[in-house]
């Protein structure tokens, strides 16, 4: 029988994959993909908890997370385009202009 823990563990694994992506990638677009992965992982956890505790709150949070993800992509992609126009690259190593 599949329990809550199963879903949560899958969610944790996917989240870690996303985290690995964030750590590993230098390309901004790829970083965005990794972020999406992490957001989705969390959504799975929310939906699972919602199901197992018979509570709609989890789903509500998932909705708002999707809304936030959508906004993030809209703004983030706009910024990426501007950056690309300006520097011709999306690699973070090329964009390191804030050295302290």
């Amino acid at each position, binding site marked *: 029988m599949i329990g809550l823990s199963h879903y949560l563990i899958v969610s944790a694994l996917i989240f870690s994959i996303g985290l690995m992506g964030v750590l590993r990638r230098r390309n901004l677009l790829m970083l965005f993909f990794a972020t999406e992965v992490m957001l989705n992982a969390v959504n799975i956890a929310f939906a699972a908890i919602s199901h197992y505790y018979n509570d709609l709150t989890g789903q509500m949070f998932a909705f708002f997370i999707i809304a936030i993800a959508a906004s993030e992509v809209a703004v983030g992609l706009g910024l990426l385009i501007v950056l690309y*126009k300006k520097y011709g690259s999306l690699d973070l190593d090329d964009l390191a202009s804030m050295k302290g």
Partner: protein
Amino acid sequence: MYEAVAFYLFSVLTIGLFLITVMSKNVLYAMTSLAAGMVLISGFFFILGADFLGVVQLIVYVGAIMALYSFAMMFFDATRDIKEKNTSNALVFVLGGLSALVLVLIFAAPIHSEAIQALYPMHEGVGNAQDVGIVLFTKYLVPFEVAAVMLLVAMISGIILAGKKMDLSLTEDMSADDEILTQKDEK
């Protein structure tokens, strides 16, 4: 039984697809596998009885967001493989593995608390969409409206950021500005 089969199938596929997303050098592959993974996640939602959420996931993520990514990709050179100096794998796997391990440990632990009570319980014999709708438009009305405004703002900013001087190259503009500045200096 079906549930178990579906769960394990989806789990394996999702994890595999997302691994491709994270590891692939090709943007196109990464994006495709991301889209596929998201479809499978909506599968999870359907298994969990969150029909409406699953549909939204399909429409918003797979439909809208992925479409946005693919349009954005047209600005970038997507056919070539991405050359990047990835962070050393050791660090990535240590950190990622550690976080995975700890999270799994935490989530695998039995939940002791008996005090968890449903704040907005689901109703028997009522469709998920109906339930969600009622809660969303009564208890979560204000956050909902705020989210709507946020999306509007995001849309406008996206248009302005990406659409401003679409016809001009920003780099050339800069040099033009520089020329004007140097001329001024000469005067």
